[in-house]
């Protein structure tokens, strides 16, 4: 085929060329067929597989977060809802130089260092095409400024989102709580699917306890995304189910009255509707604005709350554990009667102190400086005038074992199981408790201390309110509850087992004694009975903050205000047909009679004022005539 040839032979050259070209054309044909078969294989044989792959590539399911349930008070007033707010966000992908953009923005509107710091923290967790919030809750002015300057703020975006809002600000913070951004610890425990698209979670209070109901059910958008995950269009939608709306037993107006009654002081109040166990008001003062936590609180503000000597973040009504002091006396009296340690005719002599055989140190009565209550002190008088010596004597007789077990039935020493997180159980001391907690044996002196609600004994204001409600309802095991209905369906109460078996005679006796605390001329809370349009049963109390030597007198001038005694008051009304039970503690208020009791009057007045028109066929209506606004604490003090 190949020959050496010296001279050009055009014919032969053409022939060689033609042969080579035709060979090449065959080769091209074969290679062309290879290409065609390859594309045929991909597009015809494997079409289904690749069509599926292609859809998987582009179609994604994007969560559609539900709207959080709204919280109403018992009268339908909104306590927590969701408001559209304008937030400023930055889309990193479109922003160019971030620092420069932020500098430009901060020259237009105020940006705190905290805003910027938290922006960078959030930025790390987000994809470049997702807007990262820089500032929440823009004012209308800020929105206008940003809108006008939009052309120089490439990459920034004002977007509207639903943000939790608490119109009552600080009024319900300790009960209703607040939502906040999901933190790292929470994100490890929550169901990722249920929370996809949601960035807030209930942090405290009702918001936390009823999180599952309030959250709602996440929906989904089937969306087409590009290779970088940006959504191009929505293909299909499953709408989210909004969270359930909650109706609370709480009464906004009552809560307002109760909160204001503390007039800036420290303390707690719990009011319970006896018929249902529903909590009408629950105050822990001072409080703070729940809204400040929703979009994240600045470190400075948080530190201020945390380090305030008034401890505004501490939920006193639920977690504050105080010695109940004399407020425990009606209950212990009842236990004494029921256990037959005393009778209604048992009397003692009170010289102003109590001596226990074999113990040198005397137990003082609170009015020892006036020489005690004298001779012939019976249980009624001991309650009305709050005689400690009677209870020392009776306490020794009853014994700690009976005191402890019987008290538990009234909710002391254990959690009430209210529908709120973080409740503290208090302490109802017993032999076993002391052995376990202190590693020591029980002494008779311990019993004597407990018998007037001091010593090891601790209760929360909620427990005292529950105890009072149970006494008021003659042993009905009232279960405190905040949420009345979920989406209009009655919130089922927890079942409570045993009910104390106490004869009516004793209930009447105790109720009468407690009524006399308020209504008799010698009652410790007589200061509030003026202008009372209903009958009220109550009991004052004082809780020692520091222990005082037996031979020393309590002298307020010698100790700082923070160590003054706490003032307590428990009450229910009306005595004949109890509707409301209340427990109040005023920290360092010193006297239950002059500080705590007037608050009770204010709140109960307000309660009957609001319910009276609804119950106008009952006794209340007839006594309504001489109602006048509460005189408050000053007036009561003046009467002392």
């Amino acid at each position, binding site marked *: *085929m*190949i020959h*050496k*040839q*010296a*001279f*050009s032979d*055009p*014919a*032969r*050259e*053409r*022939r*060689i*060329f*033609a042969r*080579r*070209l035709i060979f*090449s*054309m065959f080769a*091209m044909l074969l*290679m*062309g067929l*290879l*290409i*065609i078969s*390859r*594309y*045929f294989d*991909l*597009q*015809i044989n*494997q*079409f289904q*597989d*690749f*069509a599926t*792959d*292609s*859809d998987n*590539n*582009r179609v994604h399911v994007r969560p559609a977060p539900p709207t959080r349930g709204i919280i109403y008070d018992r009268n339908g007033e909104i306590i927590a809802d969701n408001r559209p707010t304008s937030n400023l966000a930055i889309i990193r992908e479109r922003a160019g130089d971030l620092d420069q953009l932020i500098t430009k923005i901060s020259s237009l509107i105020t940006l705190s260092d905290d805003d910027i710091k938290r922006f960078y923290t959030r930025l790390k967790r987000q994809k470049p095409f997702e807007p990262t919030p820089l500032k929440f809750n823009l004012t209308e002015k800020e929105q206008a400024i940003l809108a006008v300057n939009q052309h120089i703020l490439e990459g920034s975006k004002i977007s509207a989102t639903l943000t939790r809002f608490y119109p009552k600000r600080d009024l319900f913070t300790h009960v209703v709580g607040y939502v906040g951004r999901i933190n790292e610890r929470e994100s490890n425990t929550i169901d990722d699917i249920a929370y996809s698209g949601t960035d807030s979670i209930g942090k405290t209070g009702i918001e936390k306890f009823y999180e599952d109901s309030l959250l709602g059910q996440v929906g989904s958008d089937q969306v*087409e*995304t*590009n*290779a*970088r995950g940006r959504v*191009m269009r929505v293909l299909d939608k499953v709408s989210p189910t909004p969270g359930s709306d909650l109706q609370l037993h709480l009464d906004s107006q009552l809560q307002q009255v109760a909160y204001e009654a503390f007039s800036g002081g420290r303390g707690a109040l719990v009011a319970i509707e006896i018929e249902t166990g529903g909590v009408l008001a629950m105050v822990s003062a001072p409080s703070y604005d729940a809204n400040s936590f929703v979009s994240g609180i600045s470190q400075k503000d948080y530190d201020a709350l945390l380090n305030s000597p008034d401890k505004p973040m501490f939920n006193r009504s639920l977690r504050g554990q105080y010695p109940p002091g004399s407020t425990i006396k009606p209950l212990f009296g009842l236990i004494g009667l029921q256990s037959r340690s005393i009778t209604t005719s048992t009397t003692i002599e009170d010289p102003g102190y109590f001596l226990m055989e074999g113990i040198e140190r005397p137990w003082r009565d609170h009015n020892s400086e006036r020489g005690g209550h004298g001779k012939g002190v019976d249980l009624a008088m001991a309650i009305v005038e709050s005689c400690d010596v009677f209870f020392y004597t009776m306490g020794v007789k009853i014994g700690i074992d009976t005191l402890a077990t019987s008290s538990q039935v009234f909710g002391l020493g254990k959690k009430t199981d209210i529908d709120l997180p973080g409740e503290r159980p208090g302490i109802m001391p017993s032999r076993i408790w002391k052995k376990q907690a202190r590693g020591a044996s029980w002494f008779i002196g311990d019993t004597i201390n407990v018998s007037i609600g001091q010593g090891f004994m601790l209760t929360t204001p909620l427990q005292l309110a529950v105890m009072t409600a149970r006494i008021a309802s003659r042993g009905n095991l009232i279960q405190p509850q905040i949420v009345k209905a979920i989406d209009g369906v009655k919130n089922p109460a927890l079942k409570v087992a045993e009910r104390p078996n106490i004869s009516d005679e004793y209930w009447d006796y105790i109720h009468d004694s407690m009524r006399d605390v308020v209504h008799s001329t010698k009652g410790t809370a007589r200061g509030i009975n003026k202008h009372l349009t209903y009958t009220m049963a109550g009991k004052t109390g004082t809780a020692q903050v520091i222990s005082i030597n037996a031979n020393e007198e309590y002298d307020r001038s010698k100790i700082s205000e923070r160590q003054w005694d706490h003032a307590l008051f428990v009450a229910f009304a009306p005595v004949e047909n109890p509707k409301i039970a209340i427990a109040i503690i005023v920290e360092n208020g010193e006297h239950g009679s002059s500080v705590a009791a007037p608050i009770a009057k204010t709140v109960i007045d307000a309660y009957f004022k609001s319910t009276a028109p609804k119950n106008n066929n009952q006794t209340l209506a007839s006594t309504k005539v001489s109602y006048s606004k509460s005189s408050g604490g000053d007036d009561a003090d003046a009467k002392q």
Partner: protein
Amino acid sequence: MRNNDFVRRIKSPGGDRKKSGSTHIDFPLLILLLALCVFGLLVLYSAGGQDLSYIKRQATFMVVGFCLMFVVAQFEVRYWEKWAFVFYSLGLLLLFAVLLFGVGAKGAQRWLDIGFTRLQPAEFMKVGVPLMLAAYLSNRFIPPTLKHTSWAMAMILLPAVLIVRQPDLGTALLVFFSGFLTLFLAGLGLRYLILTFLTSIAAVPIMWNFVLLDYQKQRILTLLSPEQDKLGSGWNIVQSKTAIGSGGLNGKGWTEGTQSQLNFLPESHTDFIIAVLGEEFGLIGILTLLTLYALVIARCSFIALNAQSQFGRLLAGSLGLIFFIYVFVNMGMVSGILPVVGAPLPMISYGGTAILTLFIGFGLLMAISTEPNRMRKVL
């Protein structure tokens, strides 16, 4: 065959040839090229995300390309033969210039910035090398002797090595092929073919260890198992196969291809544009394009077989063949049967220099097709 040649000779210098001689335009080729350009712009519009700026630039290059083609076609073939060495040398100079002053991206230095636009000199060598070789070999013995073959190989390898240095292995291989095909058409002896084949095989380990860069090795490994690294270097090929496969017989419709419109497909307007076509126009679109290509190549072969001079024959033949090689390499690479090398799809992929080079090539083909019959000069 002799007889055929004779018949053609009688026919070709006929009257119609002289008529077209005045304008030097090959109308069948012109119509095919216009069809390809329109098709190409259509696909590019979709592939570039409906961005008109791509279309404007590409169309500008096409218009310039057509003008260049007409200009090139008007020169008689013998001038091109005479000036081949000059163009080749100029091309080499540009390649040196790229190595010295080139600009580029992703670690490669492939472009020369000439102010208003960027040029990729390596593309020009796809025509420059066959031009040079055709000129060189047509004046030598056919089939070429060892000495001439060696010189020819040197002429091929010099630019190829310069292009590998950029580095641009794909273009280097195509330049090598364009020269080698000229040699083949010139009747390169069977033993040289076998020798080249064996040398190529022997060169594989050397290339692998000393010439190929890591990313180039990666691309070859990726070809063998693209699913190994779906998000890394396998991404391109997995996505392009998905795009093509999901197009099915009829395609998803123009600008409706989700793979390309949603940016899953990388380089969708340049090297991987066939995947856009496959996705949006389906197998029917692919076959339509292949038919157009086949007709272009058939026309090139026809021109080559009817060329009046050895130079014209060799040049036309190798330009036609290399055109096919472009198509084959690109379509093979995008569909995952060849490694990913930088090889655009002729007339369709976005890229100015490639378009201009193709039109220069077609200008030469038109010059050859209208070459007047003259006495061959004899060595």
